[in-house]
Protein backbone atom coordinates (compact mmCIF):
# COMPACT_ATOMS: atom_id res chain seq x y z
CA UNK A 1 0.00 0.00 0.00
CA UNK A 2 2.72 2.47 0.99
CA UNK A 3 4.54 1.95 -2.33
CA UNK A 4 1.36 2.66 -4.27
CA UNK A 5 0.72 5.84 -2.24
CA UNK A 6 4.30 7.01 -2.79
CA UNK A 7 3.97 6.37 -6.51
CA UNK A 8 0.77 8.45 -6.66
CA UNK A 9 2.31 11.33 -4.70
CA UNK A 10 5.56 11.28 -6.69
CA UNK A 11 3.63 11.34 -9.94
CA UNK A 12 1.42 14.27 -8.96
CA UNK A 13 4.19 16.30 -7.31
CA UNK A 14 6.63 15.52 -10.17
CA UNK A 15 9.20 14.16 -7.70
CA UNK A 16 11.52 11.16 -7.75
CA UNK A 17 9.69 8.42 -5.75
CA UNK A 18 12.99 7.41 -4.12
CA UNK A 19 13.08 10.75 -2.29
CA UNK A 20 9.71 10.08 -0.63
CA UNK A 21 9.35 7.95 2.52
CA UNK A 22 6.46 7.20 4.90
CA UNK A 23 7.83 9.96 7.17
CA UNK A 24 7.84 12.60 4.41
CA UNK A 25 5.58 15.56 5.22
CA UNK A 26 3.29 16.47 2.32
CA UNK A 27 3.11 20.19 3.01
CA UNK A 28 6.33 20.83 4.93
CA UNK A 29 8.64 18.73 2.74
CA UNK A 30 6.92 18.49 -0.62
CA UNK A 31 5.22 21.90 -0.63
CA UNK A 32 1.84 20.39 -1.47
CA UNK A 33 -0.92 22.95 -1.91
CA UNK A 34 -4.68 22.41 -1.76
CA UNK A 35 -4.82 21.78 -5.51
CA UNK A 36 -2.20 19.02 -5.13
CA UNK A 37 -4.08 17.37 -2.25
CA UNK A 38 -7.22 17.47 -4.36
CA UNK A 39 -5.44 15.56 -7.14
CA UNK A 40 -3.92 13.09 -4.66
CA UNK A 41 -7.37 12.37 -3.23
CA UNK A 42 -8.88 11.77 -6.66
CA UNK A 43 -5.95 9.58 -7.70
CA UNK A 44 -6.20 7.45 -4.54
CA UNK A 45 -9.88 6.97 -5.14
CA UNK A 46 -9.17 5.97 -8.72
CA UNK A 47 -6.14 3.74 -8.29
CA UNK A 48 -6.98 2.14 -4.95
CA UNK A 49 -10.73 1.85 -5.43
CA UNK A 50 -11.47 3.31 -2.00
CA UNK A 51 -13.92 6.06 -1.06
CA UNK A 52 -12.02 9.22 -0.18
CA UNK A 53 -13.22 11.83 2.27
CA UNK A 54 -10.74 14.68 1.76
CA UNK A 55 -11.18 16.35 5.16
CA UNK A 56 -10.43 13.08 6.95
CA UNK A 57 -7.71 11.87 4.59
CA UNK A 58 -5.74 15.12 4.79
CA UNK A 59 -6.45 15.76 8.52
CA UNK A 60 -7.88 19.04 7.31
CA UNK A 61 -9.91 19.92 10.42
CA UNK A 62 -7.29 18.68 12.88
CA UNK A 63 -6.72 22.02 14.61
CA UNK A 64 -10.44 22.72 14.80
CA UNK A 65 -10.98 19.33 16.43
CA UNK A 66 -8.33 20.17 19.01
CA UNK A 67 -9.85 23.59 19.76
CA UNK A 68 -13.26 22.06 20.28
CA UNK A 69 -11.80 19.33 22.47
CA UNK A 70 -10.17 21.99 24.65
CA UNK A 71 -13.49 23.86 24.90
CA UNK A 72 -15.35 20.72 25.84
CA UNK A 73 -12.55 19.55 28.15
CA UNK A 74 -12.01 16.33 26.22
CA UNK A 75 -8.52 14.82 26.04
CA UNK A 76 -6.91 15.73 22.68
CA UNK A 77 -5.82 12.12 22.14
CA UNK A 78 -9.40 10.91 22.49
CA UNK A 79 -10.77 13.65 20.21
CA UNK A 80 -8.29 12.84 17.45
CA UNK A 81 -8.81 9.09 17.80
CA UNK A 82 -12.53 9.59 17.36
CA UNK A 83 -12.23 11.96 14.39
CA UNK A 84 -9.42 10.01 12.65
CA UNK A 85 -9.97 6.34 13.48
CA UNK A 86 -7.33 5.29 10.95
CA UNK A 87 -4.51 6.86 13.03
CA UNK A 88 -2.76 4.72 15.67
CA UNK A 89 -2.35 5.92 19.26
CA UNK A 90 1.40 6.26 18.70
CA UNK A 91 0.84 8.40 15.62
CA UNK A 92 -1.65 10.62 17.47
CA UNK A 93 0.91 11.23 20.22
CA UNK A 94 3.54 12.07 17.60
CA UNK A 95 1.16 14.52 15.93
CA UNK A 96 0.42 16.28 19.21
CA UNK A 97 4.15 16.66 19.88
CA UNK A 98 4.73 17.97 16.36
CA UNK A 99 1.91 20.54 16.12
CA UNK A 100 4.00 23.65 16.64
CA UNK A 101 6.51 22.79 13.94
CA UNK A 102 4.00 23.04 11.07
CA UNK A 103 1.47 21.02 9.08
CA UNK A 104 1.70 17.45 10.40
CA UNK A 105 0.36 15.39 7.48
CA UNK A 106 2.74 12.57 6.52
CA UNK A 107 2.73 10.05 3.69
CA UNK A 108 2.19 7.29 6.28
CA UNK A 109 -1.09 8.97 7.31
CA UNK A 110 -2.46 8.54 3.78
CA UNK A 111 -1.35 4.90 3.80
CA UNK A 112 -3.10 4.33 7.15
CA UNK A 113 -6.29 5.84 5.76
CA UNK A 114 -6.11 3.72 2.60
CA UNK A 115 -5.39 0.54 4.57
CA UNK A 116 -8.33 1.17 6.91
CA UNK A 117 -10.71 1.77 4.00
CA UNK A 118 -9.40 -1.13 1.92
CA UNK A 119 -10.29 -3.42 4.83
CA UNK A 120 -13.75 -2.08 5.41
Amino acid sequence: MIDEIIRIIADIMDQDPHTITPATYLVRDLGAQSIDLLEIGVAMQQHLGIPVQDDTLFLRDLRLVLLRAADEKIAPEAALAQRYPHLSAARINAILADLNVGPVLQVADLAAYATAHARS
Partner: protein
Amino acid sequence: MKVVLTGWGAITPLGETPQAMAEAVRRGQAPFTPSPWGYPVAPAPSPNVRALVGPMKNARYLCRAGRLAVAAAVQAVADAGLAPPLSQAALFLGLGPHLEAAPPQALWLLSAMPSTTTSLVAATLGIHGESATLLGACAASTQALVWGARAIAEGRTAVALVGGADSRVGERAVAAYASAGVLTPADIRPFDTERNGFIPAEGAAMMVLESEEHARGRGARILASVLGTGIGIDGRELTDPNPETMAPVVRSALEGTAVDPSQLVVLAHGTGTRAGDAAEAAMLEAVLGKDFPGAVTALKSWLGHGAAACGLMELALLLACRAHGFVPSVRGLATPCARLPFLRACRPWQPRFVLVESFGFGGQAAAVLMELTHALGTPV
Protein backbone atom coordinates in the same frame (compact mmCIF):
# COMPACT_ATOMS: atom_id res chain seq x y z
CA MET B 1 9.85 52.93 -30.14
CA LYS B 2 11.41 50.55 -32.70
CA VAL B 3 10.71 46.88 -32.05
CA VAL B 4 13.30 44.21 -32.81
CA LEU B 5 13.44 40.42 -32.81
CA THR B 6 16.37 39.01 -30.86
CA GLY B 7 15.68 35.31 -30.57
CA TRP B 8 13.27 32.52 -31.37
CA GLY B 9 12.59 28.87 -30.74
CA ALA B 10 10.30 26.40 -32.43
CA ILE B 11 9.23 22.79 -32.18
CA THR B 12 7.76 21.87 -35.56
CA PRO B 13 6.97 18.77 -37.60
CA LEU B 14 10.22 19.51 -39.50
CA GLY B 15 12.32 19.46 -36.33
CA GLU B 16 13.31 21.34 -33.21
CA THR B 17 16.33 23.27 -34.48
CA PRO B 18 16.80 25.76 -37.34
CA GLN B 19 19.37 23.38 -38.81
CA ALA B 20 17.01 20.39 -38.80
CA MET B 21 14.16 22.43 -40.26
CA ALA B 22 16.26 23.89 -43.08
CA GLU B 23 17.84 20.54 -43.89
CA ALA B 24 14.45 18.82 -44.09
CA VAL B 25 13.26 21.39 -46.64
CA ARG B 26 16.54 21.11 -48.57
CA ARG B 27 16.03 17.36 -48.79
CA GLY B 28 12.46 17.91 -49.91
CA GLN B 29 11.22 15.92 -46.94
CA ALA B 30 7.67 16.81 -45.92
CA PRO B 31 6.70 15.56 -42.45
CA PHE B 32 3.31 14.10 -43.34
CA THR B 33 2.32 10.68 -42.11
CA PRO B 34 -0.86 8.59 -42.16
CA SER B 35 -2.93 8.67 -38.96
CA PRO B 36 -5.36 6.13 -37.48
CA TRP B 37 -8.11 8.73 -38.03
CA GLY B 38 -8.19 8.38 -41.80
CA TYR B 39 -6.27 11.50 -42.79
CA PRO B 40 -2.57 12.33 -42.97
CA VAL B 41 -1.22 14.48 -40.13
CA ALA B 42 2.02 16.32 -39.31
CA PRO B 43 3.15 15.41 -35.78
CA ALA B 44 5.99 17.26 -34.03
CA PRO B 45 8.73 15.77 -31.83
CA SER B 46 7.89 15.36 -28.13
CA PRO B 47 10.17 17.57 -26.06
CA ASN B 48 11.25 16.35 -22.62
CA VAL B 49 9.94 19.28 -20.58
CA ARG B 50 11.27 17.88 -17.32
CA ALA B 51 14.79 17.67 -18.74
CA LEU B 52 14.49 21.30 -19.89
CA VAL B 53 13.00 22.94 -16.81
CA GLY B 54 13.31 20.39 -14.00
CA PRO B 55 10.44 19.13 -11.84
CA MET B 56 7.23 21.11 -12.41
CA LYS B 57 4.24 19.62 -10.65
CA ASN B 58 1.81 21.78 -12.60
CA ALA B 59 3.07 20.24 -15.83
CA ARG B 60 0.32 17.70 -15.14
CA TYR B 61 -2.10 20.33 -16.45
CA LEU B 62 -0.13 21.04 -19.63
CA CYS B 63 -1.81 19.70 -22.73
CA ARG B 64 0.41 18.59 -25.59
CA ALA B 65 0.42 22.06 -27.12
CA GLY B 66 1.37 23.45 -23.70
CA ARG B 67 4.40 21.18 -23.49
CA LEU B 68 5.48 22.27 -26.96
CA ALA B 69 4.96 25.90 -25.89
CA VAL B 70 7.13 25.60 -22.79
CA ALA B 71 9.93 23.92 -24.75
CA ALA B 72 9.86 26.51 -27.55
CA ALA B 73 9.75 29.37 -25.02
CA VAL B 74 12.82 28.07 -23.21
CA GLN B 75 14.59 27.78 -26.58
CA ALA B 76 13.60 31.31 -27.63
CA VAL B 77 14.80 32.94 -24.43
CA ALA B 78 18.15 31.12 -24.62
CA ASP B 79 18.48 32.04 -28.30
CA ALA B 80 17.98 35.71 -27.39
CA GLY B 81 20.80 35.45 -24.86
CA LEU B 82 18.45 36.11 -21.96
CA ALA B 83 18.10 34.10 -18.76
CA PRO B 84 15.05 33.68 -16.55
CA PRO B 85 13.54 35.26 -14.54
CA LEU B 86 12.23 37.78 -17.08
CA SER B 87 10.27 39.59 -14.39
CA GLN B 88 9.34 42.69 -16.37
CA ALA B 89 8.68 40.96 -19.70
CA ALA B 90 5.26 40.79 -21.32
CA LEU B 91 3.81 37.51 -22.57
CA PHE B 92 1.34 37.13 -25.44
CA LEU B 93 0.45 33.65 -26.63
CA GLY B 94 -1.85 32.52 -29.42
CA LEU B 95 -3.47 29.24 -28.44
CA GLY B 96 -6.52 27.10 -28.99
CA PRO B 97 -8.81 24.90 -26.92
CA HIS B 98 -7.53 21.49 -25.85
CA LEU B 99 -10.16 19.21 -27.30
CA GLU B 100 -8.87 16.00 -25.69
CA ALA B 101 -8.90 17.26 -22.09
CA ALA B 102 -10.85 14.91 -19.81
CA PRO B 103 -10.90 13.43 -16.30
CA PRO B 104 -9.50 11.57 -14.28
CA GLN B 105 -7.68 14.64 -13.00
CA ALA B 106 -9.70 16.61 -10.47
CA LEU B 107 -8.84 19.88 -12.22
CA TRP B 108 -8.86 18.64 -15.83
CA LEU B 109 -10.62 21.90 -16.62
CA LEU B 110 -7.22 23.58 -16.22
CA SER B 111 -5.88 21.39 -18.98
CA ALA B 112 -8.75 22.34 -21.29
CA MET B 113 -8.18 26.07 -20.77
CA PRO B 114 -5.65 27.62 -23.18
CA SER B 115 -4.65 30.24 -20.60
CA THR B 116 -3.13 27.51 -18.40
CA THR B 117 -0.37 27.20 -20.99
CA THR B 118 0.27 30.95 -20.74
CA SER B 119 0.38 30.70 -16.94
CA LEU B 120 2.87 27.86 -16.96
CA VAL B 121 5.12 29.46 -19.58
CA ALA B 122 5.13 32.53 -17.33
CA ALA B 123 5.89 30.41 -14.26
CA THR B 124 8.71 28.62 -16.08
CA LEU B 125 10.38 31.86 -17.14
CA GLY B 126 9.50 34.02 -14.14
CA ILE B 127 7.43 36.43 -16.23
CA HIS B 128 5.26 38.85 -14.28
CA GLY B 129 4.49 41.53 -16.87
CA GLU B 130 1.57 42.41 -19.12
CA SER B 131 -0.02 39.33 -20.63
CA ALA B 132 -2.86 38.03 -22.75
CA THR B 133 -3.90 34.75 -24.30
CA LEU B 134 -5.04 35.30 -27.88
CA LEU B 135 -7.68 32.93 -29.17
CA GLY B 136 -8.10 34.16 -32.75
CA ALA B 137 -8.26 30.69 -34.26
CA CYS B 138 -5.58 30.23 -36.92
CA ALA B 139 -4.55 33.89 -36.71
CA ALA B 140 -3.80 33.58 -32.98
CA SER B 141 0.01 33.41 -32.96
CA THR B 142 0.26 36.27 -35.46
CA GLN B 143 -2.17 38.22 -33.26
CA ALA B 144 0.24 37.58 -30.37
CA LEU B 145 3.12 38.99 -32.43
CA VAL B 146 1.04 42.08 -33.21
CA TRP B 147 0.09 42.61 -29.57
CA GLY B 148 3.66 42.13 -28.36
CA ALA B 149 5.07 44.50 -30.96
CA ARG B 150 2.48 47.13 -30.10
CA ALA B 151 3.06 46.81 -26.34
CA ILE B 152 6.73 47.61 -26.96
CA ALA B 153 6.10 50.29 -29.59
CA GLU B 154 3.72 52.03 -27.20
CA GLY B 155 6.32 51.95 -24.44
CA ARG B 156 4.42 49.62 -22.09
CA THR B 157 7.20 47.04 -21.90
CA ALA B 158 10.79 46.65 -23.11
CA VAL B 159 10.66 42.89 -23.66
CA ALA B 160 7.84 40.67 -24.86
CA LEU B 161 7.78 36.93 -25.41
CA VAL B 162 5.22 36.19 -28.12
CA GLY B 163 4.22 33.01 -29.84
CA GLY B 164 1.76 30.26 -30.34
CA ALA B 165 1.27 26.56 -29.84
CA ASP B 166 -1.31 24.07 -30.93
CA SER B 167 -1.81 20.38 -31.53
CA ARG B 168 -4.44 19.27 -34.00
CA VAL B 169 -3.29 15.74 -34.78
CA GLY B 170 -5.39 13.86 -32.19
CA GLU B 171 -8.58 11.95 -32.84
CA ARG B 172 -11.06 14.65 -31.80
CA ALA B 173 -9.30 17.46 -33.64
CA VAL B 174 -8.99 15.46 -36.85
CA ALA B 175 -12.63 14.40 -36.59
CA ALA B 176 -13.69 18.03 -36.07
CA TYR B 177 -11.75 19.25 -39.12
CA ALA B 178 -12.95 16.28 -41.16
CA SER B 179 -16.57 17.07 -40.40
CA ALA B 180 -15.91 20.65 -41.50
CA GLY B 181 -14.69 19.22 -44.81
CA VAL B 182 -11.34 21.00 -44.77
CA LEU B 183 -8.90 18.05 -44.70
CA THR B 184 -7.17 16.52 -47.69
CA PRO B 185 -6.93 12.73 -47.81
CA ALA B 186 -3.81 13.12 -49.97
CA ASP B 187 -1.43 16.11 -49.95
CA ILE B 188 -1.70 19.78 -49.04
CA ARG B 189 -1.24 21.95 -52.16
CA PRO B 190 -1.74 25.63 -51.37
CA PHE B 191 -2.82 27.80 -54.32
CA ASP B 192 -2.95 24.87 -56.75
CA THR B 193 -6.06 24.49 -58.88
CA GLU B 194 -6.19 20.85 -57.68
CA ARG B 195 -6.02 21.71 -53.96
CA ASN B 196 -8.52 19.91 -51.76
CA GLY B 197 -7.75 20.73 -48.14
CA PHE B 198 -5.02 20.85 -45.51
CA ILE B 199 -3.05 18.44 -43.36
CA PRO B 200 -3.45 19.21 -39.63
CA ALA B 201 -0.24 19.69 -37.70
CA GLU B 202 1.12 20.57 -34.29
CA GLY B 203 3.96 22.65 -32.98
CA ALA B 204 5.00 25.80 -31.20
CA ALA B 205 6.99 28.88 -32.11
CA MET B 206 8.11 31.60 -29.69
CA MET B 207 9.86 34.88 -30.39
CA VAL B 208 11.57 37.41 -28.17
CA LEU B 209 10.78 41.01 -29.06
CA GLU B 210 12.55 43.98 -27.49
CA SER B 211 12.68 47.69 -27.88
CA GLU B 212 15.72 48.52 -29.98
CA GLU B 213 17.06 50.52 -27.08
CA HIS B 214 16.82 47.56 -24.70
CA ALA B 215 18.37 45.16 -27.23
CA ARG B 216 21.26 47.48 -28.07
CA GLY B 217 21.74 48.30 -24.41
CA ARG B 218 22.57 44.69 -23.66
CA GLY B 219 24.45 44.09 -26.91
CA ALA B 220 21.90 41.62 -28.22
CA ARG B 221 22.07 40.15 -31.72
CA ILE B 222 19.25 41.72 -33.74
CA LEU B 223 17.60 39.36 -36.21
CA ALA B 224 14.84 41.60 -37.54
CA SER B 225 12.79 44.66 -36.84
CA VAL B 226 9.03 45.07 -36.99
CA LEU B 227 8.00 47.67 -39.57
CA GLY B 228 4.23 47.36 -39.49
CA THR B 229 1.35 45.43 -37.98
CA GLY B 230 -2.30 44.85 -38.84
CA ILE B 231 -5.08 43.13 -36.96
CA GLY B 232 -8.80 42.93 -37.62
CA ILE B 233 -11.95 40.92 -37.98
CA ASP B 234 -14.33 40.27 -40.86
CA GLY B 235 -17.45 40.93 -38.83
CA ARG B 236 -19.70 39.21 -41.35
CA GLU B 237 -19.28 35.48 -41.70
CA LEU B 238 -17.73 32.62 -39.77
CA THR B 239 -16.50 30.49 -42.66
CA ASP B 240 -16.62 32.61 -45.79
CA PRO B 241 -13.23 34.35 -46.17
CA ASN B 242 -13.64 37.74 -47.77
CA PRO B 243 -10.82 39.49 -49.68
CA GLU B 244 -12.40 42.85 -48.97
CA THR B 245 -12.11 42.52 -45.21
CA MET B 246 -8.74 40.74 -45.32
CA ALA B 247 -7.10 43.48 -47.41
CA PRO B 248 -7.19 46.35 -44.88
CA VAL B 249 -5.37 44.21 -42.30
CA VAL B 250 -2.54 43.46 -44.73
CA ARG B 251 -2.47 47.06 -45.98
CA SER B 252 -2.21 48.26 -42.40
CA ALA B 253 0.99 46.21 -41.97
CA LEU B 254 2.46 47.65 -45.20
CA GLU B 255 1.25 51.21 -44.70
CA GLY B 256 3.80 53.98 -44.41
CA THR B 257 6.76 51.65 -44.79
CA ALA B 258 9.44 52.12 -47.42
CA VAL B 259 9.77 48.57 -48.65
CA ASP B 260 11.55 47.57 -51.85
CA PRO B 261 8.91 45.12 -53.16
CA SER B 262 11.51 43.12 -55.08
CA GLN B 263 13.07 42.29 -51.70
CA LEU B 264 9.79 41.21 -50.11
CA VAL B 265 8.71 37.62 -49.52
CA VAL B 266 5.08 37.11 -48.56
CA LEU B 267 4.33 34.18 -46.25
CA ALA B 268 0.78 33.54 -47.38
CA HIS B 269 -1.66 31.82 -45.04
CA GLY B 270 -2.31 29.33 -47.88
CA THR B 271 -4.22 26.52 -46.21
CA GLY B 272 -4.88 24.59 -49.40
CA THR B 273 -8.66 24.82 -49.01
CA ARG B 274 -10.77 25.85 -52.01
CA ALA B 275 -12.37 28.93 -50.46
CA GLY B 276 -9.50 30.09 -48.25
CA ASP B 277 -6.84 30.20 -50.96
CA ALA B 278 -9.18 31.76 -53.54
CA ALA B 279 -10.01 34.63 -51.19
CA GLU B 280 -6.41 35.14 -50.11
CA ALA B 281 -5.10 35.08 -53.68
CA ALA B 282 -7.69 37.67 -54.75
CA MET B 283 -6.75 39.83 -51.77
CA LEU B 284 -3.01 39.55 -52.54
CA GLU B 285 -3.54 40.43 -56.20
CA ALA B 286 -5.39 43.54 -55.10
CA VAL B 287 -2.94 44.58 -52.36
CA LEU B 288 0.37 43.73 -54.06
CA GLY B 289 -0.65 44.69 -57.60
CA LYS B 290 -0.35 42.76 -60.83
CA ASP B 291 3.38 43.31 -61.29
CA PHE B 292 4.55 42.53 -57.75
CA PRO B 293 8.28 41.88 -58.21
CA GLY B 294 8.79 40.02 -54.90
CA ALA B 295 7.76 36.46 -54.16
CA VAL B 296 4.91 34.62 -52.47
CA THR B 297 5.36 31.33 -50.66
CA ALA B 298 3.04 29.19 -48.52
CA LEU B 299 4.80 27.17 -45.85
CA LYS B 300 1.86 25.01 -44.78
CA SER B 301 2.96 22.97 -47.78
CA TRP B 302 6.00 22.03 -45.63
CA LEU B 303 4.63 22.16 -42.09
CA GLY B 304 0.98 21.27 -42.40
CA HIS B 305 -1.52 23.55 -40.73
CA GLY B 306 -0.26 24.53 -37.29
CA ALA B 307 -3.66 26.03 -36.41
CA ALA B 308 -3.26 28.63 -33.63
CA ALA B 309 0.53 28.39 -34.00
CA CYS B 310 0.73 28.52 -37.79
CA GLY B 311 1.82 32.12 -38.46
CA LEU B 312 4.81 32.06 -36.16
CA MET B 313 5.77 28.49 -37.04
CA GLU B 314 5.92 29.59 -40.67
CA LEU B 315 7.91 32.71 -39.79
CA ALA B 316 10.30 30.47 -37.82
CA LEU B 317 10.73 28.18 -40.84
CA LEU B 318 11.44 31.19 -43.05
CA LEU B 319 14.03 32.50 -40.57
CA ALA B 320 15.66 29.06 -40.37
CA CYS B 321 15.90 28.62 -44.14
CA ARG B 322 16.94 32.21 -44.83
CA ALA B 323 19.78 31.81 -42.35
CA HIS B 324 20.86 28.90 -44.52
CA GLY B 325 20.62 31.00 -47.66
CA PHE B 326 17.29 30.14 -49.22
CA VAL B 327 13.53 30.63 -49.14
CA PRO B 328 11.29 27.53 -49.25
CA SER B 329 8.95 26.95 -52.17
CA VAL B 330 5.24 26.31 -52.25
CA ARG B 331 5.83 22.55 -52.22
CA GLY B 332 3.75 20.64 -54.75
CA LEU B 333 2.46 23.68 -56.64
CA ALA B 334 1.84 22.56 -60.23
CA THR B 335 -0.94 24.79 -61.60
CA PRO B 336 -1.29 28.05 -59.67
CA CYS B 337 -4.80 29.34 -59.15
CA ALA B 338 -3.71 32.99 -59.36
CA ARG B 339 -1.27 35.28 -61.14
CA LEU B 340 1.09 35.81 -58.25
CA PRO B 341 4.88 35.25 -58.19
CA PHE B 342 4.71 31.98 -56.26
CA LEU B 343 8.02 30.28 -55.51
CA ARG B 344 7.76 27.05 -57.48
CA ALA B 345 11.15 25.87 -56.20
CA CYS B 346 13.28 26.79 -53.21
CA ARG B 347 15.17 29.96 -54.15
CA PRO B 348 18.70 30.82 -53.03
CA TRP B 349 17.79 34.21 -51.65
CA GLN B 350 18.02 36.23 -48.46
CA PRO B 351 15.10 38.64 -48.85
CA ARG B 352 15.25 41.85 -46.83
CA PHE B 353 11.57 41.95 -45.96
CA VAL B 354 8.97 39.39 -44.92
CA LEU B 355 5.22 39.78 -44.61
CA VAL B 356 3.45 37.21 -42.41
CA GLU B 357 -0.31 37.02 -42.75
CA SER B 358 -2.76 34.73 -40.97
CA PHE B 359 -6.49 34.29 -41.29
CA GLY B 360 -8.69 32.16 -39.06
CA PHE B 361 -12.21 30.82 -38.75
CA GLY B 362 -14.58 33.62 -37.83
CA GLY B 363 -12.77 36.21 -39.95
CA GLN B 364 -9.82 36.65 -37.58
CA ALA B 365 -6.95 38.35 -39.39
CA ALA B 366 -3.45 39.52 -38.51
CA ALA B 367 -0.38 40.56 -40.47
CA VAL B 368 3.16 41.70 -39.65
CA LEU B 369 5.84 43.20 -41.85
CA MET B 370 9.45 42.72 -40.76
CA GLU B 371 12.82 43.83 -42.02
CA LEU B 372 15.38 41.06 -41.66
CA THR B 373 18.91 41.98 -40.74
CA HIS B 374 21.93 40.92 -42.74
CA ALA B 375 22.62 37.32 -43.67
CA LEU B 376 23.18 34.99 -40.77
CA GLY B 377 24.13 31.37 -40.53
CA THR B 378 25.69 29.04 -43.03
CA PRO B 379 24.35 27.35 -46.14
CA VAL B 380 23.02 23.83 -45.62
